[in-house]
């Protein structure tokens, strides 16, 4: 029991005294995850919209594949990215393994299907509503996708936040491709795993608290955005 309370107070002290090691890890986590979310949104949001608006032969399969990709075990993603980026791999020449860039790549692969899938559902519903109007107004394909993304922006923000939530808490893939190197690729989740293993509970709990606060904030944001979305459509 004293382990918990001691750890808890020590953790608060680290947070309040702006412990440089702790904050370095927090900032790297945010930097990696925010970059991944931005890249995944740039790919995933239009991809979801495109799948919702276009009829083509293998559309059903494409959507099934997308949903299957959402369920990819992150550890396996980590393994594939590791193999691709390792010296002998097809992208080995870039020397990205064990760098934040490698972690960003892994996170992008993990959350793009999630963002694309939520975006697809949102845009599909909006498209059903707008279809006749946009066709009647003779909007081009690109114009249609733009209008749908713009008018569905609140729901799409929810998709982006869900992607953030998944990425910030991810540990398996990040551990494999980042290597959890101190001052280089150590992020919240991998640091917690390491410090817990070493029995350094104060530091682990400090990190854990920050992670919890971030996760709760994201879920609150999703809730608020969802609420205004419903209010404004009605």
């Amino acid at each position, binding site marked *: 029991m004293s382990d918990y309370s001691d750890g808890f107070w020590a953790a608060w002290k680290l947070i309040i005294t702006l412990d440089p090691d702790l904050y370095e890890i927090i900032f790297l986590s945010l930097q990696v995850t925010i970059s991944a979310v931005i890249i995944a949104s740039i790919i995933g949001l239009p991809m979801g919209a495109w799948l919702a608006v276009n009829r083509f032969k293998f559309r059903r399969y494409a959507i099934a594949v997308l949903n299957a990709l959402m369920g990819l075990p992150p550890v396996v993603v980590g393994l594939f990215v590791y193999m691709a980026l390792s010296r002998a791999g097809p992208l080995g020449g870039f020397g990205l393994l064990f760098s934040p860039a490698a972690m960003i790549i892994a996170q992008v692969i993990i959350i793009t299907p999630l963002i694309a899938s939520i975006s697809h559902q949102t845009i599909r519903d*909006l498209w059903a*509503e*707008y279809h*006749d*109007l946009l*066709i*009647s*107004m*003779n*909007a081009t394909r690109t*114009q249609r996708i733009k*209008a749908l993304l713009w*008018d*569905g922006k609140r729901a799409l923000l929810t998709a982006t936040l869900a992607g953030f939530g998944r990425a910030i808490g991810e540990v398996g893939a990040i551990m494999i491709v980042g290597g959890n190197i101190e001052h280089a690729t150590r992020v919240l989740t991998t640091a917690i795993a390491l410090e817990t293993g070493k029995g350094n509970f104060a530091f682990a709990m400090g990190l854990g608290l920050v992670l919890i606060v971030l996760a709760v904030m994201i879920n609150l944001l999703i809730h608020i955005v969802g609420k205004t979305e419903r209010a*404004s*459509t*009605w």
Partner: protein
Amino acid sequence: MVSILPLKLTDATAHMRGKKLVGPVSLTLAPTGFTMVIGPNGAGKTTLLRLMHGLQRCTGGEVVWAVPATQARDRQGFVFQSPIMMRRKVADSLAYPLRLRGMGKAAALEKVAQCAGNFGLSELLESWAPMLSGGEKQKLSLARALITEPEILFLDEPCANLDGRATREIESILRQVQARGTRLVMSTHNMGQAKRLADDVIFMLGGKVHEHAESEGFFEASSTPEAKAFINGDIVE
């Protein structure tokens, strides 16, 4: 610019999943006038308008404008039976069709302000379009379809949910629009309205054009018993 009219339908037919909805329909819409499409529920009025506008694919026969279909599209307007409201402010909804045509933001908003005045929407420009009342939505739909100054405007029961005053407002707008030379094609269940506005009448029954006649002749001395019964308010199968 060459007019997109007349519009000529030759045995135009619409199927949906093997079921015939409308047709075969053959008729010509002259370059001017106000055509009223009437008939009981499910007769195919909406489908016929959609077929003409190109929202419904022809599965048989053809719908031909005086210019290629790709050029004709931009010069038509359509007001739907149930208004489709974009999730935007009224001003942005009105500006949207202009922006689609490449008009700059400032020019579009200027035109929007002017157009809103004509439709009594000036007070509502900053309102969220999906929150408007049914009548206001219908007026916004009409303004949005007219803001690009189409040569032909299709209206699918635009006054279905409106009270007498709102209906009169819409009718007076439509008269002005017609006076400016816009071709009008509208469906309605309101016989009084059909008599007031129509130059010619298309009477639909069971997916076919049962009768297409000048308004006066149609209402005074219709040639078929079904049309007579419908005008009198009897149930027609």
